[in-house]
């Protein structure tokens, strides 16, 4: 029976997650050891799931996701540092599609433009940051948190108003 998904991502959250921003990912192995890696684009699908493009050589994170699926993703605006963390589980890790490649190229170009426009880095240096490839994972979001730096970081935005 297909998994029933209650979408938590509203229009504002979708806009934020799909905008050019810093995307970091936390996973954990079955012994509780956490791992940090990068994501390169997020697409909010019609049913509220996220299609997240991860670094292809993030071996630890990908092994963790295949083992237990637990994932946290934080998106941070490069300039304002406004941040949102979504937590949930991954239902699939799969090779990138041609649509993923288009999405990666587009988001990467937009990220470089934002960073250069804000005078945060030179384009030729940022280019060195590009991953050797990406893979896709499908994420079911179970909770959303305000992660903007400060004492309110960790406030749950959905589904209730309690702290993480």
């Amino acid at each position, binding site marked *: 029976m297909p998994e029933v998904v209650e979408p938590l991502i509203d229009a504002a959250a979708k806009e934020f997650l799909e905008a050019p921003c810093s995307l*970091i990912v936390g996973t954990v192995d079955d012994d509780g050891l956490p791992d*940090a890696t990068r994501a390169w684009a997020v697409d909010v699908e019609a049913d509220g799931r996220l299609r997240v493009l991860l670094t292809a050589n993030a071996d630890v994170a990908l092994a963790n996701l295949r083992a237990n699926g637990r994932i946290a993703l934080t998106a941070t605006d490069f300039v304002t540092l406004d941040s949102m963390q979504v937590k949930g589980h991954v239902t699939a890790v799969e090779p990138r599609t041609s649509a993923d490649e288009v999405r990666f190229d587009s988001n990467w170009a937009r990220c470089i433009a934002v960073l250069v426009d804000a005078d945060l880095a030179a384009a030729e240096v940022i280019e*060195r940051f590009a991953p050797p490839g990406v893979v896709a994972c499908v994420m079911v979001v179970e909770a959303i948190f305000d992660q903007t730096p400060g004492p309110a970081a960790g406030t749950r935005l959905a589904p209730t108003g309690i702290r993480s």
Partner: protein
Amino acid sequence: MSPRRQVTLYDIQSCFEGIIPAAIATASADGVPNVTHLSRVHLVDDDHVALSNQFFSKTVRNLAENPRACVEVIDPHTYDRYRMVLRYERTERRGPLFERLRRDIDAIAALTGMQDVFKLRSADVYRVVELELVPSAANLAEMRDAGPDGGRES
């Protein structure tokens, strides 16, 4: 056990200048990951880094339950990424290290007009148990160009 690594913390000192925020992943005792940015990771010595504790955040609560973390830092000059696995060792609430972190927090607070918000509670010291380069496409191309001896990833 000695850390298994070829890159040293001193090799990547520029990652600790606080120019590009780091990322830290922790996990609760029941295995739920949390990931957030850190304004700065502080180099302590050959094998240790320190993180500032300002709020009773989810990161701090997770580390109280599960004293391991994974941090990614970025070299602001080359944009090379380094992955570190950390294990919590001790907390300092006074002394030279605490004062160094407090000055840094105070400077950030002054720059952002948040002097009443950002207050250092403690300097938490972690042993670095793993340190490695996370190769980008550019790094891998450079390694190929350098040949077999230069082709190591860390």
